[in-house]
């Protein structure tokens, strides 16, 4: 497998884990816009950064970020960014159903299939 696709796979794995953990963390914290209106920006930042799940998510995102930098140094941005982001979208939909118990209905699965074909075209 070309090294570019290994870097893209690493972006996808770390980003999916980060997304799922971020979503869980934010649902626990509640409406951020409302919290900011009520208590101010500093209180929001303090609340977010004191959440353990958020910190683990941030670590995953950081690893994903350095994988992205590496992939960008090897390939075109117009290939690396959409392909990694689209594959992350599909993996996140599956992970959201399994881990977050979200209602991923037929509409969301169809869009995942369209994205898959789109990604295949990007690699051409």
């Amino acid at each position, binding site marked *: 497998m070309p090294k570019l696709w290994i870097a893209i796979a690493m972006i996808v794995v770390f980003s999916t884990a980060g997304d799922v953990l971020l979503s869980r963390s934010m649902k626990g914290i509640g409406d951020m816009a409302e919290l900011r209106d009520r208590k101010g920006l500093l209180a929001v930042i303090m609340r977010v950064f004191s959440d353990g799940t958020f910190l683990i998510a941030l670590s995953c995102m950081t690893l994903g970020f350095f994988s992205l930098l590496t992939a*960008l140094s090897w390939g075109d941005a117009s290939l690396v960014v959409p392909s990694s982001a689209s594959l992350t979208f599909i993996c996140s939909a599956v992970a959201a159903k399994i881990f*977050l118990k979200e209602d991923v209905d037929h509409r969301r699965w169809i869009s995942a299939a*369209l994205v898959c074909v789109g990604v295949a075209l990007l690699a051409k």
Partner: protein
Amino acid sequence: MQLRKNLVYLAIMGFGGIGDVLLKRGMQDFGVVDLHHPWHVVTALANPWILVGIVCLTGFFASYLTALSWHDLSYVLPATAMGYVVVTLLSRYFLHEQVSGWRWAGILLISCGVGFVTRGPAVTERKEDQRKEKEPLAAAKGSHELA
């Protein structure tokens, strides 16, 4: 409130796309990452393009967190799909990369797919939410019966 939500999704698309392209511009100056010295990539953080890219991606991240606090992950991710189009347009006209017809078709298909999902519900209805909605009704019905 709807305007605020639309602005947050616009910020996700704009900051995300611009940030990614600025990172690519910075990595063009930096050169190829050497697999024998992977930690050397950290020194790329001194590049101004990468620094501005990180500022944009910070704006993206704040907007993304706000959207995640409102809606499902499987809704938020595709709803931000127009960011792909921003990346492709900037790659073509700012980075002067070759974007083939196949890639344009891929981008179009991805945008259609992810745009499709935004027409559905944004939040999963939980049993607890339904119970909370029914509780006040049941309480009102109970007090009515008592009266």
